[in-house]
């Protein structure tokens, strides 16, 4: 059974139809990269999976939990971590406090346990020495790695990435992608909206191309990048691949 099931999902912003009959299954451990021009609905798509964006029609089931029932939203958010383009770290808290806050108040872990796990995660994203600093004292790449550690601290089964490297200086993109690659290798289920085609080729099990609120084409990265079937995919790739 798929860990994420989307059935005929439709969403409107006012009169703007931003998601049109989306059907998508993601298997446990699968890494799915979503590409497409801006305004194609790809960010909105992944934001519906943890109910940051409500949908008006259709059904989304995450790990067996139907999120169209508002009562289930908290349960789903515990299972789904999210990393944002603009990091969204809590500026008034240290790195360690950023990571331990939700485990302590949502999972009700004691401080010692939360801090121990936070330090392990910081080790994993290679910034354990920054634990006592405030976000504003870190580079963009470091901040985004803290954001990844913060999401992982809730021990989610699924991780969503909404253009995680788009706000970074070029020289910092690599360190964030490395952390994401390591996560993918560890077997995490991931949905990634990105323009990093190298990352998609290397890590993705599947690439989805979206345009104007629809899934136009999907397949293995080699197939989609080297031999796109749909002319809109071809046009998009021709624009970004050089």
């Amino acid at each position, binding site marked *: 059974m798929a860990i994420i099931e989307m059935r005929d999902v439709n969403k409107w912003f006012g009169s703007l139809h931003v998601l049109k009959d989306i059907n998508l299954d993601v298997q446990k451990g699968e890494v799915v990269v979503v590409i497409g021009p801006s305004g194609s609905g790809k960010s909105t798509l992944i934001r519906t999976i943890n109910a*940051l964006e409500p949908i008006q029609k259709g059904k989304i089931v995450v790990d067996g939990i139907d999120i169209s029932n508002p009562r289930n939203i908290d349960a789903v*958010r515990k299972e789904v971590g*999210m990393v944002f383009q*603009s990091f*969204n770290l*809590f500026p*008034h808290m240290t790195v360690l406090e950023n990571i331990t806050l939700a485990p302590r108040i*949502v999972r009700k872990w004691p401080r010692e346990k939360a801090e121990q796990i936070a330090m392990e995660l910081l080790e994993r994203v290679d910034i354990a020495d920054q634990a006592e600093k405030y976000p504003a004292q870190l580079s963009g790449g470091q901040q985004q790695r803290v954001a990844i550690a913060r999401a992982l601290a809730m021990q989610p089964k699924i991780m969503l990435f909404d253009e995680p490297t788009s706000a970074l200086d070029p020289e910092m993109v690599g360190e964030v992608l490395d952390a994401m690659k390591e996560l993918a290798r560890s077997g995490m289920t991931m949905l990634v909206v990105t323009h990093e085609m190298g990352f998609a080729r290397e890590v993705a099990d599947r690439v989805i191309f979206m345009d104007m609120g629809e899934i136009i084409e999907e397949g293995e990265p080699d197939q989609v990048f080297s031999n796109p079937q749909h002319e809109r995919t071809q046009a998009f790739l021709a624009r970004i691949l050089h």
Partner: protein
Amino acid sequence: MRVLKALAWSVVALAALAVGYVVFFNGIEAALRWYFTVTNFTASKVPNFAHNLRLGAEVTIKLTVISSITGLILGLFAGIARLSKNPLFRWPAQFYVWVIRGTPLLVQILFAYNALPFLLEPLWKYLQPLGVPPIQDVLTPYWAAFIALSVNVGAYNAEVIRAGIQAIAKGQWEAAMSLGMRPFQVMRYVIVPQAIKIVVPPLVNNVIALLKDSSLASVITLLELVHQGQRMISITFRPVEVYIAVAAIYLILTTVLTFFTDWLEREMAKRGAAT
């Protein structure tokens, strides 16, 4: 250990505050005595005049402090309620802010003192048999002024707090919600601590305004600073010296408040590097 330490510190701070309060007002009284002596007021009456003005200043500061605290709590609830999606919370808060900011404080004070007892009379029919003192004894000038000033500053605080919360980027909400926090937890741990830094300077402005506006309570015979001054003028017929003294005391009180809040702002800036 942590709790004990915090407790010990609060005791020390409270004691220091109490000592500081007494020293400060004794200083004011001594200064007034010197001032009225060099301005040739009847020597035998000087200690009495100085003492009365000091008492007036104490009423003013006490009224300001308790109204500020109550107004802060009112403002916090009303400010958050104004942002609620639920009209049952939002509309009453909007109505409250609209009425209070749209009417003069003087009218609100007169209303609290003269009209509120009539409105509360039906309620007192049930309360008085339970041992509650009669309404006239409860709504003294002091407590009527307290109600009017708290409710008044609460409405202005609500607007400051609403703006402060709205100034926190939407991404903070989304990040916290995506971690599974409930709206109340997001407010408590993420939004309010950041908003505080934004709202403290304008809230302090409101307190300073409140300190000065509390002088309006002289119209309901509250013996605060201005009313004590007026009584003294009616005895001495020397408005120049007395009003200068009254104004000087207000100036000292607002200056002390400004120093305190400048310090508070610096302390808050030290903690938590940046926003």
